[in-house]
């Protein structure tokens, strides 16, 4: 098993996506199926951008095993009031500035769900959000 940690700062769009890029490179080196890599990276990228867009800071932990990839993203931020609502396509709380940059179209969580096998979201308003993404490799 391999374990990686990555720290991200809220509001830093310049570096949004660097964790995804690193993970992508490693999964390619580990000879994971390109289609599965794509799903993992798309889901992680969404989650990463979510933290940058909404939270103050966050930590990503990535566990790679031969049968699955588990990603846990914990942030300190405003939290999500209604997770069910946030899971709906098109729902967004992003500011105009964020939307202008091409982020915040309200597809984050739904897209993450589509691109993962198990998605677990827990949140406490005023404290932060924890997102867990599991993707199985042997399919």
């Amino acid at each position, binding site marked *: 098993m391999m374990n990686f*940690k990555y720290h991200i700062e809220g509001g830093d769009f310049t570096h949004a996506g660097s964790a995804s890029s690193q993970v992508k490179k490693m999964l*390619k080196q580990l000879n*994971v199926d390109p289609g599965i890599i794509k799903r993992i990276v798309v889901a992680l990228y969404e989650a990463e951008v979510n933290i940058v867009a909404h939270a103050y800071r966050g930590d990503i932990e990535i566990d790679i095993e031969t049968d699955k990839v588990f990603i846990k993203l914990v942030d300190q931020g405003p939290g999500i009031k209604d997770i069910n609502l946030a899971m709906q396509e098109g729902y967004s709380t992003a500011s105009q500035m964020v939307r202008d940059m091409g982020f915040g*179209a309200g597809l984050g969580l739904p897209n993450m769900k589509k691109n993962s096998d198990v998605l677990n979201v827990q949140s406490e308003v005023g404290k932060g959000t924890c997102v867990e993404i599991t993707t199985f490799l042997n399919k």
Partner: protein
Amino acid sequence: MEQTFYHALEIKPDQCIGCTHCMKVCPTEAIRVEKGKAVLFENRCVDCGECFRACPVCAIIIEQDDFDKIFDYPVRVALVPSVFIGQFPEEISTEEIYSELMEIGFTHVFEVEHGVEILENELKNYIAKTENKPAISPYCPAIVRLIQVKFPALVENFVLLKQPVDAAAIYNKKKFLDAGYQHHEIGLFYISPCAAKIAAVKSPVGEKFSEVTGVINMNVVFNMVYTGIKQAKKETCIIPYRRSLKPKGVVWSLTRGESVNISGRSLAIDGIHNVIEFLEKLENDERMDFDFLELRACDESCAGGVLTTGNRFLTVERLHKRAEKAGKKHMNTYDHDSIMDYHEYVTSQLGLEKVKPRSMMKLDDDMLEAMKKMKKVHELMLFLPLVDCGTCGSPNCASLAEDIVQGRANITKCIFVKQTLEDRKVFSFEEAFKSLKDIWGEDKFNKKWQVNL
């Protein structure tokens, strides 16, 4: 078993001085310097030709067919891309160039971009129908190979259509067969602006073989033709039948030549490093909802091909002027002897088979084994200076670490490590590790990532 691939690029060991210039510019880390000579990893090379440009001693050559081979064929067609015309100074007319191509031995001259007359619609229809968006143009063979080795998840996005040169070859072959010639009497010679297009003819992706008989490097033909024109003393000259190329065809090989014709959201990117940067982003973000991507390995696309002689910006200027002129001519008249005579036949031959990925990045086929190797790579990275000087013969410290793990190199190839071990007279791994940590700081590699392997 790993297959090996044909490459138009070849390193001449006699000439090579092992300077590492080529190794450093290679976008797929396909070159190493061993015993003072550059060597190529065949499976990683995408024939982009960046090494050819960088070599200070001309030790990298681009293989071509012997020019005299054309005389083995009674019918000798020069398949000329429009950038060839763009190589010449403005005052030399297209007619003169055509005429001189006949003087040097061709019996016919055909500009490959006539194929665009058929291909444009096929491309539009394909993009309208395909579900794999963004559709990626397979126009540039270096990009096809780059995506195969570096972005394997994107191979499904290729537009599975042959390119103008193929359409031109298919048409000419059929035309001369119909005129009563035999297969072996028809020689179709492509005048290539780059190494990738040569590889595409010799070892095509997505088709069994190419209709093109042989390839001749553009710089060679340019020198022959330009010399001929400069030294022309003759009273008369051959004026070949010439059908004017339509404006879209003239600029098809330039940046945005394809993409301007595509409705919806499309993007044109030239320069292989720019393409890599963009594809990295495309892989992460699903919301990049492009319909079409035109990706070319060379700066200014084929005008910047490694086998061109003219300045690429001047070539672009000349071709744009030519396109403008062609646009003003009355284009509705139907020329006789046109590729459109064989519209249906050529169209029926344009399909490509699926492009297969051939990832070069994997450390091992077996994931568990790959994980073990990755762990070793990481350990080695703690020893290496991360200066990426290339003196060891690998393009950077990370690739040296990989080469060591794959059994292709030894840690003492690193001059920093070697010096340290000698100076401090340490021989055990632990001691060496400690010494190196003293020099480079504990956290150099771990700064960004906390890794527990």
